[in-house]
């Protein structure tokens, strides 16, 4: 109690931090609904004109399609490959399992810039033409470690006695996984898979090195930002924020509705 009273200073810093974090986002959202093309005060009144322009833009539609496609592929591929890997690592007794786990999480230590330049060097060396495929490969390295970390935590913390009971009752490993393990870890893994989608959808730096002629949404936005200051950038950003909010609320509600284990969002975010 007394500790709480003394933390008024920390409380003020926290409030300031949240204002600092969200003020730019509010600015972007407000200016996306302005009719004038200049991004200065005073405000010129509400309008959705720029939204019409963005949604009518074939470049944007194309980029959105590419980003959504890659994001969905990342969500599914990390879910399948990552869950399988995390299950293998947590259920094995071989000594190399921890070495393997470190290898699988290693890419997290490198900033995206290095991932991008290293991959483009490799693709160059093996003469792989840059395209959405190379973007997808880069995004896999980018999204996989986070998924794997979370899946490993989920599979480690769940109640393993149930798996042993299933085995004692004669369930084959696959059946035991599907009927006993999966239902317990599903909320966290689905959430982590949504995270893969989000990470892939927002990735710009590594993508800028390995992308071919096809654009993703961040590449399109960057092109616009470099050229001009334009309200359509605010519109696209607002649309993306709305999408992310929907994605997170969806994942969150799903996790709550299916909760069999205690759901710990901070455990999830701490690893991210």
């Amino acid at each position, binding site marked *: 109690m*007394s500790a709480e009273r003394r933390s008024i200073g920390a409380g003020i*810093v926290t409030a300031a931090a949240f204002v*600092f974090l969200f003020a730019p986002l509010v600015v972007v959202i407000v200016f996306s609904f302005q009719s004038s093309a200049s991004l200065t005060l005073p405000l010129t009144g509400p309008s959705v004109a720029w939204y019409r322009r963005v949604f009518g833009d074939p470049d944007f539609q194309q980029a959105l399609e590419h980003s959504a496609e890659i994001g969905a592929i990342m969500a599914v591929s990390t879910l399948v490959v990552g869950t399988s*890997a995390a299950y293998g690592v947590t259920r094995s007794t071989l000594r190399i399992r921890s070495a393997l786990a470190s290898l699988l999480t290693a890419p997290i230590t490198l900033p995206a810039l*290095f991932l991008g330049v290293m991959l483009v060097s490799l693709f160059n060396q093996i003469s792989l033409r840059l395209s959405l495929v190379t973007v997808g490969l*880069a995004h896999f390295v980018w999204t996989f470690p986070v998924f794997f970390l979370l899946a490993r935590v989920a599979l480690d913390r769940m109640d393993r006695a149930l798996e042993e009971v299933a085995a004692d009752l004669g369930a084959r490993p696959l059946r035991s996984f599907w009927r006993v393990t999966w239902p317990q870890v599903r909320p966290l893994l689905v959430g982590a898979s949504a995270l893969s989608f989000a990470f892939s959808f*927002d990735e710009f730096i590594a993508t800028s090195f390995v992308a071919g002629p096809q654009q993703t949404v961040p590449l399109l936005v960057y092109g616009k930002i470099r050229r001009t200051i334009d309200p359509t950038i605010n519109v696209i950003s607002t649309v993306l*924020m709305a999408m992310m909010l929907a994605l997170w609320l969806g994942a969150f509600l799903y996790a709550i509705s299916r909760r069999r284990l205690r759901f710990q969002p901070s455990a999830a975010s701490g690893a991210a």
Partner: protein
Amino acid sequence: MGDGIREGNLLIRRRLGRRRSDSSGGGRRLGDRLLLALPAAAAIALLFVTPIVVFAVYSFLSGSVYGFSAHLPFTFANYRAVVSDPTIGRLATNSVIVGFAVAGVSLAIGLPTAFWLRYCAGRFQQALIFLLVLAMFAGYLVRIYAWRTILGQDGILNDALQRIGLTSHPLGFLVFSRFAIVVALVQIVLPFVVLLLFAGFRPIEPRILESAQDLGAGFLTRWRRVVLPLIAVPAGSAFMLCILIGTSDYVTPLLLGAPGQLTVGVQIQRYFQELGEYPFGAALAMLVLLCYGILYAAFGLGFRLLRLRRLEWQT
């Protein structure tokens, strides 16, 4: 006699062993289970380990023509060229200043914030953490871009400052300056920093702080003797993360910095995307990675000398 006993023992052990492996369903196939991680291991080896090797080799190859023609023999020329570039001094200074400024400011804001979220937020805790995660995914580019609208010559901040009467003319240093770069980068890393520190505070029970207080430790003593030593290792990781992102990000300096204020991130990006000089870029990137490694090792050594450890959270 002795042989008989040994044989019996062996028999029992073998039987027990078999029973155990039978009952754990696939215990015999323990190796098989690790095989499940093989696809992932293959992918990471191919897409992460191989590129690192290729890259390290590149940094020692000659040739730097656009369209790429790195070839043998091995040479240190790239490293020499990168280091003797006349801008390298300014580049290094600027990167160090930006990196450390971002790390310092982020920790200065992040520590009290994470502290408050852990010990004082009460029932708002979950909602605020959710907001932090949300801020993290609000779009990387837009969070940089938004600062132009706020900090620009006729931006919102200048407008507000003039209206209040604090200044009579727009402040020029707000945008296209090191100040703008640091502000934008802090905004990008802050959610990560707060979450890392929050996770670090989690195993530290409130009663530890309370007993410190009961023993008569004042505010400063509590932070210096209790809080900081316990949070030092997570704070070190957060600091490192800020340095990594602050120096390698190339978008922020390009969009918000003055033309001369390049960081190593921008320079690497220029070598690869604008100049097409892969070997030079690879050499610079390897040098930067070496610096990161040295800093990381310094942190590790410091923590070991000071006997600081990370607390594990008990479920």
